[in-house]
């Protein structure tokens, strides 16, 4: 933006400008490059090496990836984790985003009282550590404590209770829902902010035309906040395919029962750091991280090229 630069800085001598840039940008660029970008690149480079028991490293090209995707010993847990991760993501998309949109819609109703109170309370879980949230739910859902079964009994649904977190069939969905419970505040807040930015005249015009709240929401507001909804979706995608803390703190590194809750983050941790069953393997760990990087990159590209292009941005 040329007009944002004042004439005085544009006329600055080159050496002086270089000095200023070094002073202002130097620390940020140095720390960021050294501890964020370089490790990413170095990890990818390490994924093309293997090490023998003596610790020496050899270049092996793409052999680690062939092992990871081709050798049943590696590919089975990898695809299991990938599939589980897709389910984890699908639950977020199908539950977290609709609830977030609905709550944002209610909060943005004109003249609603106690708005600030509801917002504060509903956003609270998002502020807490995933570890704390996971463990608290672990206790609440535990048959030992009986809070969840008691609550269900109170509404006459006692027979529905099962130790959901312990069953192979329901553990993953239960954990996904715990994560949804915690992070629903993010879509809620971002969509709420977008809804507030819709110009009043648009809504007033619709009201004059005789549209009710519901139709105004679905036909006018919702299409206008679609860019925000797709942004929320891509944020959810990146966060989900990089998730680790919740599974690790509730289920441990082995993501039980029988790896039913294993996702890429826990698989990466086990491969890289090791656990009761295997020794840590930094080069294979790097390969897993590299695959995760490309999965996230693919999601970002899909968002940028498909969604971002299709969804029209409305300038207010």
């Amino acid at each position, binding site marked *: 933006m040329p007009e944002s630069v004042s004439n005085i800085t544009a006329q600055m001598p080159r050496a002086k400008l270089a000095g200023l840039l070094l002073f202002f940008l130097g620390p940020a660029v140095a720390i960021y490059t050294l501890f964020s970008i370089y490790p990413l690149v170095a990890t990818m480079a390490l994924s093309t090496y293997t090490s023998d028991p003596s610790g020496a490293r050899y270049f092996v090209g793409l052999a680690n990836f062939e092992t990871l995707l081709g050798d049943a010993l590696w590919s089975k847990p990898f695809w299991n984790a990938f599939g589980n991760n897709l389910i984890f993501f699908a639950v977020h998309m199908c539950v977290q985003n609709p609830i977030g949109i609905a709550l944002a819609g209610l909060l943005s109703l004109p003249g609603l009282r106690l708005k600030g109170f509801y917002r504060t309370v509903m956003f*609270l879980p998002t502020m*807490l550590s995933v570890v704390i949230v996971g463990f608290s739910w672990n*206790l609440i859902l535990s048959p030992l404590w009986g809070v969840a079964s008691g609550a269900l009994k109170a509404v006459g649904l006692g027979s529905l209770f099962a130790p959901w977190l312990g069953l192979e069939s329901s553990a993953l969905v239960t954990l996904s829902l715990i994560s949804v419970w915690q992070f629903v505040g993010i879509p809620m807040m971002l969509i709420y902010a977008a809804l507030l930015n819709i110009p009043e005249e648009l809504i007033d015009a619709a009201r004059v035309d005789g549209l009710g*709240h519901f139709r105004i929401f679905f036909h006018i507001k919702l299409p206008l906040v679609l860019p925000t909804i797709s942004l929320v979706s891509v944020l959810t995608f990146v966060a989900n395919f990089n998730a680790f803390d919740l599974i690790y703190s509730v289920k441990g590194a082995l993501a039980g029962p029988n790896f039913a809750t294993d996702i890429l983050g826990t698989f990466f941790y086990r491969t890289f750091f090791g656990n009761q069953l295997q020794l840590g393997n930094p080069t294979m*760990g790097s390969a897993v991280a590299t695959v995760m990087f490309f999965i*996230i990159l693919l999601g970002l590209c899909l968002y940028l090229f498909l969604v971002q292009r299709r969804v029209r941005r409305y300038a207010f």
Partner: protein
Amino acid sequence: MTAEQRAKSLSVHLVLIAYSVLAVGPILLVVMNSFKVRSAIFGSPLALPDATTFSLVGYEKVFRSSHILTYYSNSLIVTLVSMALVLLFGAMAAWALTEYRFRGSTALALFLSIGIMVPIRLGSVAILNMMRSAGLNDTLTALVLVYVAQGLPMSIFILSEFIQQIPKDLRDAARCDGVPETRIFFEVVAPLLRPAIATVAVFTIVPIWNDLWFPLILTSSDSTHTVTLGVQQFLGQYITDWNSVLAALSMAILPVVLIYVILSRQLIAGLTSGAVK
């Protein structure tokens, strides 16, 4: 208000109240029961502690058998130092990127924005190797360096938006008076960035305080554990001791909730501000 409007507004409030209960209920339940004796935790989990059921036995146990105060101070040091550096270096970089015209500035801005989307966690293998060879393994410094690198991209992005909103005349007037650039930044621009602190805090500070991954990878001794990791390990060890588990959970929850309630207005304003559209 007509009867129909009143019924509508009532139903909206009912939905919002129901969801609010779902959101804070579990947290209240844990905190409430951490102040009770074991028999009351199991006997009447939904009751508030009273004179007969009140007990601090869980808290005593946590203080006795974990280094909870060390964890708190580690978390505080790491979070505050990281926050200060993210704000300082982030504001300086944002200033240079928005104020000075130079070749490659767009490319540099793009390079810096990679970190907003790509999680730094994926570089953990190399980060651990680097920290080991630099002798920084198992130190708080290692955590601070990683968190500053992680927080910078988002803070530069947010602070750039803020700096663009500062009137140009202000800096140009100072320049005409011959004030050096560094003083313009530190004495004119930086004080005006105070409102941005809350926004930056939501996006960078909260994830740092709550992070489990890097303390798990980079720290190995009790003296360098943060609250999140320390409590996580304590919970694993004392899993059958419900008093201690509930107390440890509450001790991790309460400071965050307290700060959140005090700052919630600014935090939410920051979150819903124009920076993220």
